[in-house]
């Protein structure tokens, strides 16, 4: 599961720590999601999208391999 949190974060000019605090998670979770090592729950994915005022699909991209 690819994502563009880093891009949106850069556009919004906020740090991982600030995003983590806003979402109520640890900074390590943001790092893991950005590196695509951890797939967030639907709730957290929607929270992230809502934080940047975009749709979930604009941040998270499902690859063919994820669906197999």
């Amino acid at each position, binding site marked *: 599961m690819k994502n563009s949190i*880093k891009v949106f974060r850069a556009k919004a000019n906020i*740090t*991982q*720590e600030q995003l983590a605090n806003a979402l*109520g*998670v*640890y*900074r*390590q*979770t943001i*790092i*893991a999601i950005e*590196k695509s*090592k*951890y797939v*967030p*729950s639907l*709730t*957290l994915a929607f929270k992230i999208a809502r934080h940047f005022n975009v749709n979930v699909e604009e941040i998270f991209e499902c690859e063919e391999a994820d669906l197999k």
Partner: protein
Amino acid sequence: MKQNAFYILTGLVVTALVGIFWLSLEWNNALPIQIGFIIGIIMLYLARSRVVGIIADERSIAISQKAAFHTLEIFWVVFFTFSLGFIVWTSSIFFGLERTPPFRFMREHNPTDMEFGRPFLNPGFIQLLFLCIIIFLYVGFKFYYERKYGGEDTDEE
């Protein structure tokens, strides 16, 4: 309750339990330490739920769940194997069979009434040893999943 207050309370409960354990040994009565241990653990669980400042982070919860599940997967096999062995050693008579324990020490002593100095053949000690091993196993699994789910703290790019 602040996190430091919780740690102080944990220390007090553990100290009290050590004292109660000693009293139980002196009185030769298991009830005080058994009841004390359950009350102590309930107190700590209640206190932990009142600690402020801990974020219920979904990734850390997922890691804990995975580590606990795999620890349980391994531990129940080990514990079940030990329990089966102990039943065979001690309960042949119960099943109407002649009792011939495999070890000389067990043939000469009642395994549930072992003398001081050979406590490590006592099932209580072996179970405690297993419980200690569980903690190491759990921490090992947590460490593994922390790495797998990319928790390493890197500098902001």
